[in-house]
């Protein structure tokens, strides 16, 4: 037990979850009071003692499933399956590579439909088991990830079609839109549960084939805040998007506290005297004037051309969610022309709508729809330079890949002279800068800082540093991070 547990903790640490020595000992202690045969209780105990952040919980769950997978005999279908599934389906080793024959599959699909309709969990589980056995085509020792098998199983079962049929059946029955919507969602959640069963079954087989450590390694997912924003998949993007708003709220709370700590101003003599009355005239409790925090004016310029779109999306979302922290926030989007996008993000507007309107209504294409930083900067300077003041900060996001056009860095120089500082956030790894058509170097000279911002964590830390003014350099002589020269 101790071995398994320490292996498990190693795995948690490897995924980035900080587990301290004390917590490991706590876990051991707590297990003494836990009925280890009770899986839910066992998991609850480990979760409560080892994982102290809800964002890490999913990662914990994956690792838990791998390390403490239920071992049960894989090859022999039990009697119970026969009752629930109808005909007995022999496992056929010869077909392991190619999947079962059509009749078998059809039969599985039929019983799946029944199980879903009746919400029969036991039956879903046994179908999942048989489906994986017959359809996933798992071979011993083959180094293929679990998602491949999952995809293969679900496709052959045509789960999406099953769901669609069931939903249609329901929609024909009821006329009320709300009722059918609810019914649809109920079915969707059952299908989701079924998929989870399939996933668990695949995982179990992988573990018994390759061992815990290997499987845990292939399933290891980076924590959300470390995901590369430029190359996130659709699912990951949805996850990140959900995380942005809570993250900004947390950051805002932190900044408010940070500001307060800096807020001690000059002694307020009147107030101190007034207070001293309750101590018999002794000024025991000195009072200070509050200082007004200086809130920067922000001009945010985002490259929204194809490759940068995802990144721009998060930056826009993040910065607009933080707009309370700035005295003024104006955002601009560009590809090879530049347009102001502030109007889409008015207070109270829905963010998805706003983004849709940006891509529909903003006039950002001038010639061919390939990024042209030079022209965009020129347009920004021509149209908006009169609004720039010494309190403004300009934040530009993009990879500075100018498609071999003229960078026109002199415009950025002109802009930089008028404002407090220009910052550049580049979502590419630092090693790629200034290679190919990247003209990062030409712009970097006018910037107070060029930051590599590839994930939420880096974006958050930039905004934090930027917003609380005491900690950021006001002159261009101090370089944050590595200065590009």
């Amino acid at each position, binding site marked *: 037990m101790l071995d398994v547990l320490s292996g498990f903790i190693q795995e948690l640490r490897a995924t980035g979850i900080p587990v301290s020595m004390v917590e490991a000992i706590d876990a051991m202690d707590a297990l003494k009071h836990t009925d280890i045969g009770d899986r839910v209780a066992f998991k609850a105990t480990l979760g*409560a003692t080892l994982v102290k952040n809800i964002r890490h919980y999913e990662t914990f769950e994956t690792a838990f499933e791998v390390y403490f997978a239920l071992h049960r005999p894989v090859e022999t279908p039990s009697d119970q399956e026969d009752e629930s599934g109808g005909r007995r389906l022999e496992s056929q080793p010869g077909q392991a590579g190619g999947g079962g024959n059509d009749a078998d599959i059809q039969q599985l699909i039929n019983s799946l439909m029944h199980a879903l309709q009746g919400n029969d969990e036991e039956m879903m589980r046994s179908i999942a088991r048989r489906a994986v056995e017959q359809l996933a085509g798992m071979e011993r020792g083959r180094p293929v990830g679990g998602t491949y098998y999952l995809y293969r199983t679900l496709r052959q079962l045509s789960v999406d079609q099953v769901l669609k049929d069931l939903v249609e059946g329901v929609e024909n029955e009821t006329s009320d839109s*709300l009722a059918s*919507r609810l019914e649809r969602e109920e079915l969707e959640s059952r299908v989701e549960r079924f998929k989870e069963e399939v996933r668990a079954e695949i995982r179990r087989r992988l573990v018994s084939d390759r061992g815990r450590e290997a499987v845990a390694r292939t399933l290891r997912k980076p924590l959300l805040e470390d995901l590369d924003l430029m190359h996130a998949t659709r699912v990951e993007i949805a996850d990140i998007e959900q995380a942005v708003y809570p993250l900004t709220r947390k950051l805002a709370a932190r900044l408010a506290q940070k500001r307060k700590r800096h807020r001690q101003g000059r002694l307020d003599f009147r107030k101190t005297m007034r207070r001293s009355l309750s101590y018999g005239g002794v000024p025991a409790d000195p009072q200070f004037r509050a200082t007004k925090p200086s809130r920067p004016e922000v001009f945010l310029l985002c490259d929204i051309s194809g490759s940068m779109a995802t990144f721009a999306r998060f930056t826009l979302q993040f910065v607009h969610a933080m707009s309370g922290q700035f005295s003024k926030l104006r955002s601009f989007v560009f590809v090879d022309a530049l347009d102001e996008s502030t109007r889409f993000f008015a207070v109270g507007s829905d963010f998805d709508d706003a983004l849709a309107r940006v891509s529909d209504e903003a006039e950002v294409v001038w010639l061919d729809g390939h990024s042209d930083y030079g022209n965009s900067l020129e347009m920004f300077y021509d149209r908006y330079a009169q609004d720039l003041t010494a309190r403004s900060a300009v934040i530009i996001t993009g990879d500075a890949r100018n498609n071999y056009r003229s960078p026109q860095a002199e415009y950025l120089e002109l802009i930089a002279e008028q404002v407090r500082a220009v910052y550049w956030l580049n979502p590419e790894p630092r090693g790629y800068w200034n290679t190919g058509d990247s003209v990062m170097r030409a712009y970097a000279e006018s910037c107070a800082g060029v930051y590599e911002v590839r994930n939420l964590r880096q974006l958050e830390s930039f905004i934090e540093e930027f917003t609380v003014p005491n900690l950021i350099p006001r002159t261009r002589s101090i370089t944050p991070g590595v200065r590009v020269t």
Partner: protein
Amino acid sequence: MTVSFGSPSEVGDALKSVNYLADHRTSQIVYLAEALGKPVLVEGPAGVGKTELAKSLATITERALIRLQCYEGLDESKALYEWNYKKQLLRIQADGERGWDAIEEDIFSEDFLLARPLLEAIRSAEPVVLLIDEIDRVEVETEALLLEILSDFQVSIPELGTISARTQPLVVLTSNNTRELSEALKRRCLFLHIGYPEIDREKEILLARVPDLSEELSEQLARVVRSIRQFQLKKPPSVSESIDWARTLLALGASHIDTDVVKDTLNVLLKYQTDIEKVSKDLTVEDGD
């Protein structure tokens, strides 16, 4: 006298008897907290019953509940203890004749100590449930005040020495997760995240909390609420809102839920205008199909 538990399921049953429906995980962790004498840090969105858990615990263990509501600017003198300045001043003025040593000894004694919730919980002769509510509202520095209490159940007062707990309090901290709590604090606690309940449990909660609610209506309610939680909302409805909504529907005499009923009463479930617009717009689109 206070009650302690033999097994997690006893905890669950006891909680159920006071109409708090805890899932298996919650009862296990609460049981551990009691068995190990560790504080529980309960985290989760607003309105899922974090504070209620502490209150119910106090009821079932027959302990007194001492509550420290946290807020920005909470400090030692509000949370731990404070010297009663005015009384001390009076004492000094009352006998100016005596030597300073005697007076000092006198004015820094327990008579002049104002116990605040944390000290009170420690000094109590009967074991108590200590609820530290919304810990995420205090500054990071203030959190440090709690560390001594949470790990050793003692308070150090420079003038008096260390006061140790006479009885072990059951400590529950709640957090809405508006900021990251310090590692030091988290390390000392068992972590319990309460999320939105599964549909079946939500139904049970509704039935337990709202008498007169029919089985069928509660099922529908739970489903609608789950459906609304799937929207990207600023503040998704939580359990307390669905309970309010169930009460509202009962008061209105609605026997079943359809699109119109939902739209008319949406403002009970959702607290932001944009959220309400978003959901009702989506429901209207469905209508047009």
